[in-house]
């Protein structure tokens, strides 16, 4: 109806600024994507919800794998807000839904992906208040395990991180199951049937005899389990 003047109601508007990330792929694209994956792995969720400008200035019409670049980024959850450089008439990008880059903007220098800051929070430590008896199996796939009692012969403790045993270790202790080579095994009295860190193991026979019955830590040096007295 014409009874309402177009200017009589004003819609609400306000300004907001975002820092857009500019990604500038380099050739060969396969390597660049692999490097990107590596960074995403170290900082999960870093790109989530972030506006990204794709800068194709280093690409050419015949760059190999160029047609797959945009789908590959979208697959990784990267939202491309605009594309700069390059040429939308290239046959390689003919299939792309080419978002127009916002005008203006100024470069604000390189952005470094925060190292580890966005990785999932540290897995909590499992504390077992008593002894782990023969036949019992404690599995804690992410964090450390602390046993206040002993680990009996025939018992098993498996941890993604380190294993700390305040009593005697007479059974099995397996640390770093997720591939964590830095994890260690600590015990007040080493009498273990088997210890393992990140897949490298030692049976009782292979253990350092001078540590038997003593406070000991076990760690991995390269591909060798090292037994060190705890003082």
């Amino acid at each position: 109806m014409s009874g309402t003047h177009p200017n009589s109601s004003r819609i609400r508007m306000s300004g907001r600024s975002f820092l857009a990330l500019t990604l500038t792929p380099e050739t060969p694209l396969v390597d660049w994507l692999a490097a990107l994956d590596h960074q995403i792995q170290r900082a999960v969720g870093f790109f989530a919800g972030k506006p990204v400008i794709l800068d194709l200035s280093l690409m050419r019409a015949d760059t190999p794998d160029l047609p797959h670049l945009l789908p590959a980024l979208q697959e990784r959850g990267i939202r491309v807000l605009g594309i700069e450089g390059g040429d939308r008439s290239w046959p390689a990008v003919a299939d792309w839904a080419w978002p127009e880059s916002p005008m203006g903007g100024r470069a604000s220098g390189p952005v470094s992906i925060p190292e580890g800051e966005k990785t999932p929070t540290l897995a909590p430590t499992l504390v077992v208040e008593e002894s782990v008896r023969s036949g019992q199996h404690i599995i804690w796939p992410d964090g450390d395990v602390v046993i206040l009692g002993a680990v009996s012969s025939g018992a098993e403790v498996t941890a993604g991180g380190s294993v700390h045993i305040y009593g005697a270790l007479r059974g099995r202790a397996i640390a770093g199951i997720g591939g964590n080579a830095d994890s260690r095994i600590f015990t007040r009295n080493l009498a273990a049937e088997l210890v393992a860190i990140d897949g490298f193991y030692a049976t009782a026979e292979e253990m350092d005899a001078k540590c038997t019955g003593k406070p000991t830590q076990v760690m991995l040096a390269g591909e060798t389990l090292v037994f060190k007295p705890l003082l």
Partner: protein
Amino acid sequence: MAKVLVVTSGKGGVGKTTTTAALGAALARAGQSVVLVDFDVGLRNLDLVMGAERRVVFDLINVIQGDANLAQALIKDKRVDTLSLLPASQTRDKDALTPEGVAKVIADLSKKFDWVICDSPAGIERGAQMAMHHADMAVIVTNPEVSSVRDSDRIIGMLDSTTEKAKAGEKMEKFLLITRYDPQRAARGDMLGTDDVLEILSIPLLGIIPESPDVLKASNVGAPVTIAEPDSAPARAYTEAARRLMGEKVEVTIPTERKGLFDWLFKRRVA
């Protein structure tokens, strides 16, 4: 309410049945009313050790299945009148022990007696689990040797995880009873010392029963050693263990044979 006590070990042949009979008789002699329940369905022995094998009519399985009532199945001891036995069935197997049936029998016995002592079969399967399931406290019978100690450790883990008490989040009282202890062999290092066993199992010590021919003799005449030879070293050790179960503070010692001059002369002459 009665105290429900399970005598268990994991390993066979360490002295569960002997201990059940001896502790039960010692408690009964101290004036407590006691019932011994044999859970070793299919391999019952407690009736023999108690000398009641010729008086068994009905058994635990008959009661569980409703073929007999408790009063019919309970066998009263002829020597100590506060002591009773509920024998196991020899012809059935442990699958006949149903959780509901066992729960009802234990609940009924708890109303009549001060102590319900369950003699567990060896192993960690159904029979042993049924015997321990309703217990308030456990006596773990262990010989001073590595295989027995490891099996006991396994059983302690089960007592702390699978029983009714554990599932209710309560702690089961557990006591270690070391049987067939030979001080001379321990001194020579042929046997694990009590300190080693205690360190590994880390539960309170109820007593140390010395190895003695009196135990076998008592079994053969069908009497608990605490009734047959009350002054023998093992009987004194069991009697002291029973006093500790009743809450008395008695220091743990290893009773040794009393060798009088007469014994010494006699043995010399025989030799």
